[in-house]
């Protein structure tokens, strides 16, 4: 389906369209990046936030930047709300996302927040399948545009 190795999707949480998982915690959600996203980035080298907590954010507002051995990306707020806390361990050691994307490598917490966009694991699986052919073409198209 998506490359050769299957992606293990924990079923104890929900997922956002931007490939973040959302784990309900007391009074809100804790977010991190799904293994799918981490795999595309490769070995994580650098992660930095561009907002300071507490930060009121709109959905898809740019909140940071991540760089891995294979790719870079801006990071965006998964839902509208207030980011209360960033995981202090991650900027110092971004490889936590490679080794523990679903627990120790969590990224941020939002008390409350608009949960209507969050998908069940099954819905996210379908989203991945729907998005993958397009994602592939985008990625390959980008690679083809680069100078040799």
């Amino acid at each position, binding site marked *: 389906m998506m490359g050769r190795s299957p992606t293990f999707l924990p079923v104890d949480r929900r997922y956002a369209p931007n490939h973040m998982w959302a784990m309900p915690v007391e009074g809100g959600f804790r977010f991190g990046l799904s293994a799918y*996203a981490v795999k595309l980035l490769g070995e994580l080298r650098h992660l930095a936030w561009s907002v300071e907590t507490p930060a009121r954010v709109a959905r898809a507002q740019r909140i940071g930047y991540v*760089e891995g051995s294979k790719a*870079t990306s801006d990071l*965006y707020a*998964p839902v509208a709300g207030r980011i209360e806390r960033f995981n202090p361990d991650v900027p110092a050691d971004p490889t936590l996302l490679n080794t523990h994307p679903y627990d120790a490598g969590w990224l941020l917490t939002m008390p409350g927040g608009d949960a209507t966009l969050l998908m069940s694991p099954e819905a996210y699986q379908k989203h991945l399948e729907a998005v993958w052919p*397009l994602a592939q073409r985008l990625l390959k*198209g980008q690679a083809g*545009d680069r100078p040799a």
Partner: protein
Amino acid sequence: MTDEIAVIVSGPRHAGSQQQALQQQLVGALAGRPELAVSLIPHLYDLKPDGPAVRMLRSVAGDMIVLGWIYPRAAYWVLDANRIRGRMGRTAMMAEEEVTDEAPAARAGEEATQRTIWCLDLREHAEAGPYLEEIGRLAGIELAAEPAMSAKTAGAPHGAGRVQEERAPRWYPVIDYGRCTNCLECLNFCLFGVFGLDDEGSIVAEEPDACRDGCPACARICPAGAIMFPQHTDPGIAGDAAAAPGDLKLDLSQLFGGADVAQLAAAERDRALAEQRRHAPGTQEPGSGKPSDQDELDKLVDELDDLDL
């Protein structure tokens, strides 16, 4: 070396507690040493042209060590843009390829300078130790991490000058004249009139603050990788000498931006449309006649469109 060395400590654009602590530790250990003349200035890249900090820096005649929160290569050429010039000093923290042993060529109307400027990036280490070791090595003195005097007060400690300015974040291209070949692609490309020519016909960022905030397009079009935007998130664009020009990674922002399937499809379709236009028979090419330049240009026009000007 009997002349004192100027040590310029420039603050970060946004001072978090870790950065403040590092800075205070450094200034505490450096200030008061007779071999060093320590000055605190705001964020190097944001300095006002001809402002008090730049004027102070220009008044320094001898060797200079500059500590900042941007890549050393970016810092060196920001200084150069402000007519603060010297031989690029080799530090233990630099990649070998970055440093040329030649002194920079004299500019018209100025004497060639023989002094050396060393730049250090304060983002590389969280502790003061490695920086004090390097500064000690350059100055030929022993520096301990224990402060020579207390640096606990928030203001400049006794023994360090401070130059303050009203701070405003800036965004403008910084030219690395070690790489620049004066091809003038940036001048032709920029839509905002940032670039111009000096009296000798060399490219300069003539109107730096005309630059559109966040736009790094000229850095991508420069064939020599000679343009830097020190605040850009991509290290290659921000001035990391280790990132070779053309060595740019995939950018997954479109995937991670929460775009839904319809948006991704539209983006994919637009890209394909552009591809089709490029290869359609009868497509006119601009003067250069080189296909690869045209592809780069289309890609950059797409990027400009995405910026939503």
